[in-house]
């Protein structure tokens, strides 16, 4: 008997009892579906993080406001803008490892161009920002010195905003757009950096303060919300970091022993750590899903054992008609394999559907790769072989004479 014949016999047997066959493979279906889904969500989360890490740029330090004490009460981090343009200058001038640095103020606003409008992040910064993030222009230019110092009414658009405001073939450069009733000239459009990064419009820092954020209570003339700085080389990150900390502690007159009113972070490193955590959680979830596969395997073994008992006479007949022990074993192994493969295939379909649903409903990024599907199917084949072997072996060991005597 060939493998093919084994599968034909198996399919025939399973078709006779479709409900039972389906219930038998349900554990495998659920197990494989959860593995595929967990993989897809985990891989999606990793992709998103990787994109963020890439978008920040290499060797970037980020300085954000830290704890602030007001009359002995510790306020929430970032509740007061403690960083200033002076800090940016000092970091640039006094720390040799720093190649570029820029302060930013950001908020959200509606941007309008002719009939179209779009809600996006408005980031007030300097050209240094683009240097730090290695962010190239798709067209146009960065801010000029005069625009930066004179609060020029100019804007550089992220590719998403450019796409939303301008029709295809309509060149944004030189066009007038409006943000909070202020007309601005588009001088540049940035390269794509990733869906989460491209939805932004940059204006000169001075423009942001003067035109958009001037009335905000927690802002004084000099403050910025955060600073990003580019370090020359990989090996200098730690050194640059402590130099910035020392410099800012001096400048902010942080008393010895008190918490800094700023935080220096290495976002790429933090995200890489986060990525590791995601991987760990995903692996844990896969392990849990595998338990379902195990339960599915046991359920298949159970049903196969019952089936062997029920079909003892059939086994006797097949043996008397010339079936070898290995033919009987192959027949039942094929049944277990078909159950597992079918269950695995349904599980893959279910998992793909589920992760696409999750992606749509929860807005998570999911990513289905062939590797995860292959792995899940390999798992189910292995389950079929492992849990199908014992019943098949048991069937093949039956004495044909005894088997023929059973009712």
């Amino acid at each position, binding site marked *: *008997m060939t493998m093919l014949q084994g599968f034909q016999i198996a399919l*025939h*047997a399973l078709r006779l009892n479709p409900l039972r066959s389906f219930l038998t493979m349900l554990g495998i279906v659920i197990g494989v579906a959860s593995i595929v889904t967990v993989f897809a969500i985990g891989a999606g989360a990793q992709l998103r993080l990787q994109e963020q890490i890439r978008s920040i740029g290499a060797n970037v330090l980020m300085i954000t406001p830290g704890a602030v004490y007001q009359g002995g009460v510790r306020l929430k981090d970032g509740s007061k803008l403690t960083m200033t343009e002076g800090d940016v200058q000092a970091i640039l001038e006094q720390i040799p490892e720093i190649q570029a640095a820029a302060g930013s103020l950001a908020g959200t606003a509606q941007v309008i161009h002719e009939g179209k409008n779009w809600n996006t992040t408005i980031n007030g910064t300097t050209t240094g920002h683009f240097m730090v993030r290695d962010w190239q222009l798709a067209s146009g230019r960065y801010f000029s010195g005069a625009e930066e110092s004179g609060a020029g009414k100019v804007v550089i658009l992220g590719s998403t905003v450019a796409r939303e405001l301008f029709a295809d073939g309509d060149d944004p450069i030189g066009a007038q757009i409006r943000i909070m009733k202020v007309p601005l000239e588009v001088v540049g459009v940035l390269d794509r950096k990733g869906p989460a990064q491209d939805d932004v419009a940059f204006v000169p820092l001075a423009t942001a303060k003067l035109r958009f954020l001037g009335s905000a209570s927690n802002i004084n003339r000099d403050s910025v919300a955060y600073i990003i700085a580019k370090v020359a080389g990989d090996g200098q990150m730690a050194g640059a970091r402590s130099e910035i900390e020392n410099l800012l502690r001096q400048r902010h007159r942080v008393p010895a022993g008190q918490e800094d009113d700023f935080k220096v972070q290495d976002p790429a490193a933090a995200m890489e750590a986060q990525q590791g955590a995601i991987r760990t959680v995903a692996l844990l979830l896969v392990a849990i899903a595998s338990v379902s596969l195990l339960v599915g395997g046991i359920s298949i073994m159970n049903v196969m054992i019952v089936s062997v008992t029920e079909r003892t006479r059939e086994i006797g007949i097949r043996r008397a*008609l*010339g079936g070898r*022990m*290995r033919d009987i074993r192959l027949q039942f192994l094929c049944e277990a394999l078909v159950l597992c493969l079918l269950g695995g295939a349904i599980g893959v379909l279910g998992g793909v559907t589920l992760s696409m649903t999750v992606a749509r409903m929860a807005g998570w990024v999911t990513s289905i790769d062939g590797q995860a599907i292959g792995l899940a199917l390999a798992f189910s084949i292995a389950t079929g072989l492992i849990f199908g072997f014992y019943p098949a072996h048991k069937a093949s060991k039956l004495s044909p*004479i005894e088997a023929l005597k059973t009712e």
Partner: protein
Amino acid sequence: MTAASPPLISLQSVSRTYRTDGVAVTAVRNVSFEIAQGEIVAVMGPSGSGKSTLMNMIGLLDLPNEGAVYLQGADVAGLSEDRRSSLRARSIGFVFQSYNLLARHNAIENVALPLVYCGIARKERLARAEASLQAVGMLHRAHHFPRQLSGGEQQRVAIARALIASPLIVLADEPTGALDSRTGAEILALFAALNRTGQTIVMITHDPGIATQCRRTIRLHDGELVADETQAMIPPKRNAVS
């Protein structure tokens, strides 16, 4: 048949003892006989006299504890389990009292089953199964399932299955035991017709009327061979009394 060629089946001092919980039951004791190509042999004896045990050994389903069974001169004890299985598929055709058709397969699939174990492709299997069903007059029921067939019809299908691989010998264990006398007679007539075409047949029966229609009768009692008679009524080509 030339004198040099060995008999189809030869049993020499065959004994088969079952041991259950220390109790030994000798089902077949020191039995010797030969069956030549083309014979039709009835095996008779009271219940428990060892008829089925004997037939299982001839059919390579079981091996003797003592003595030897030769198939075409070859000691079957020397064959591997797999080899004996393959020989069953090609050389032995079983017919059972309870038909033993697979309930979930239709007639033609049941008939074709032994060929699965001969490694024959599906198309040829079905073609040969049709021919075999035709030979027993059941071709018109090829796609019926066993539960849709009467006992006599099921037994015809079972005989078609036993014949499909053109076996050296057909072994029938009380093939008419579950049938009324008229249907039994029809089945018996079918066996007789097959035998006239040269098919070797060994048939266990309790019915003396059936036995008299076979040229040769072997009688067992308590596992021992007590008689091996060949009727002179139809002059035999060869007398195989041992």
